[in-house]
Each structure stands twice: as structure tokens, then as C-alpha cells.
């Protein structure tokens, strides 16, 4: 089953620090990738308002575009993990977010990592893609 999915991590200051196309359709057209990022950024306003109304970290689907849904997970430091997807598998998405959150905390604990800067580690990239294949 081919799925489209775009995953980005946005810092507290609304700067994307990590992005990855994790869908199983291999050949994504360039316009589609740009469109995915645009949809995710447009959803940031909604996330901002929603984040202050609940103390949960997993905010389910916050926005819709055609048949694609945006799901968001907000960490304690207001770093947003956002996923644009077309599947209905909520549990899988929640587990995916929790695993990536743990990876993010480990990255953060590095005292030489400047919080809010881009995550450039290739190992982090590999792990996220592996998790996406597993849960999505």
C-alpha cells in the first residue's frame, strides 16, 4: 500500500529543524514535496492555539487538505513534530511520534547541540526513516 507522508520537526521559534519525506511512494514529484511543506507550515497557527488548551502532547488531526491530514505532537519545550499523511492509522502515528520524541530528547541532551538549530545527524535521519517504515 503506497502512502504519502511528510514529516517535519518545527522548533519553538517556528523554524523547521528537520524534514523528511517518509511515505512509501518512492518517486515524489518535486511540486508535491513543496506542497506538503506548505500545508504543514500553514497548519502552524492552528497548532499554536490548540497547544494551550490541553496538557496532552499528542494533538490528533489538526487540519485537513483534500484527502491528507495533518497530525501534530507537541513536546514540553514546544517543539512540534508534524506529520502530513493520508492513512487512518492513529495508533501507529502516535507510537511513531513517541519514538521520535525519545530520539529528539537524546539529541537534545548533547550539550554541544544548540537548541533550535538544525538536526544534521545522519544517524538520526536513518532512525526516523526506519521508524516511519515500521509504524506508518
Amino acid at each position: 500500500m503506497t502512502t504519502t507522508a511528510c514529516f517535519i520537526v518545527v522548533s519553538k521559534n517556528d523554524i523547521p529543524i528537520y524534514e523528511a519525506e517518509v511515505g512509501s511512494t518512492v518517486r515524489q514529484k518535486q511540486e508535491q514535496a513543496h506542497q506538503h511543506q506548505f500545508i504543514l507550515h500553514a497548519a502552524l497557527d492552528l497548532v499554536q492555539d490548540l497547544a494551550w488548551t490541553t496538557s496532552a502532547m499528542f494533538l490528533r488531526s489538526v487540519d485537513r487538505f483534500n484527502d491528507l491530514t495533518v497530525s501534530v505532537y507537541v513536546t514540553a519545550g514546544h517543539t512540534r513534530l508534524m506529520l502530513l499523511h493520508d492513512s487512518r492509522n492513529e495508533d501507529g502515528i502516535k507510537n511513531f511520534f513517541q519514538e521520535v520524541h525519545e530520539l529528539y530528547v537524546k539529541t537534545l541532551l548533547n550539550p554541544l547541540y544548540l537548541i533550535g538549530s538544525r538536526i544534521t545527524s545522519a544517524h538520526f535521519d536513518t532512525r526516523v526513516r526506519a521508524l516511519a517504515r515500521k509504524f506508518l
Partner: protein
Amino acid sequence: MIGVGKPKQYGNVLDKPLSRGRQEVSLSAFAFLFSELVQYNQTQVDNIAELERRLEDAGYAVGARVLELLCHRDKGNRRETRLLGILSFIHSTVWKVLFGKVADSLEKGTEHEDEYMISEKELLVNRFISVPKDMGAFNCGAFVAGIVRGVLDGAGFPAVVTAHFVPIEGQQRPRTTILIKFAEEVLRREARLG
């Protein structure tokens, strides 16, 4: 036999599991490290205000990480969205993890709506430090003030946090108070959330 019971070696830090906590560091090692930190910064600056600012920045980095780590590890992935919630989180959870005990007291300021104070009889970082007379009101608790500011800023409650000595009658050493003054937007948002 040699090699039996050797702990598993992980290739990359991202593969290692997050530690469960309960890691204790010797007090003397910490005191030594902190004193070296202060001395190093003393050589880099010309005045007291700059020194306090540097210590605060060092604490800020710690605070931001402590917030993420504790919410993930101890609080079962629940964020704090209210003012009193984040203050009691700092007062109990953060203090317990960093210093081994909850803070002595948490008070609301009487003159201003946006001021709160966390007091401690003897701040751990100040325990082995004596400030010479010519340094005036310098307080190494600026490091702890930085930690608190890091936690508050990360959680979305920007504030100005400072450390002060408050002399108490009948006691030789003054009490340390961390004064937290929240930004305007925090109060407005709190009022809006009701």
C-alpha cells in the same frame, strides 16, 4: 571468566536507552566543577553584571534540557500549560532531580501580580562559596536562576529570573531567593485561559 557480564556497547548515542534516573554525582565533584566554572568566567569578564549573565546563560542551557527530559521521563508526556502548574513543577520535580529535595518555599509576590519567589535556606551551589566584600551583591545562585529561566522559557512562560540574598535574623548565612518576574504576555494568556 573475563568478558562475561560486560555491558552492551552501543554504536551511537541515539541507540543507547535513556537512563532511568537515580544517577547521583558526588557533592565534592560538583562543587569543584562549579568553582572552576565561576573562576573561568571571572577571567573572561570585566564586571560583576557580565559574570552573573554568563552564569545565567550556562544555567539556561541546563534548564531547557531538564524541562524536556523530565517531562518525557517522569511526567508521562504531559505538558504544563498553566502558570501555577509550571511553578509547582519547578518547585518540586525539578528541584528534587537537581538538588535531591523540594525547594523550601514558593510564594507569590505581594506588591506585583507578576512576581513569584522560590526560597531556599542554603542553595546547593552557594554552599561552598563565600563572596568577598568588594563584589557587592554578586550571587552565584545566578546559575540556578538561569536554570529556572531555561525551564520557564522552554515551556512558553518568558520571565526575568534573578537570585538575591535575603538576610534572616538569628541566622548567620542569608537565605537565597529566586525572584521570577513574568512577562506581560504570560499574564494576558493566563487571564484568557481563565
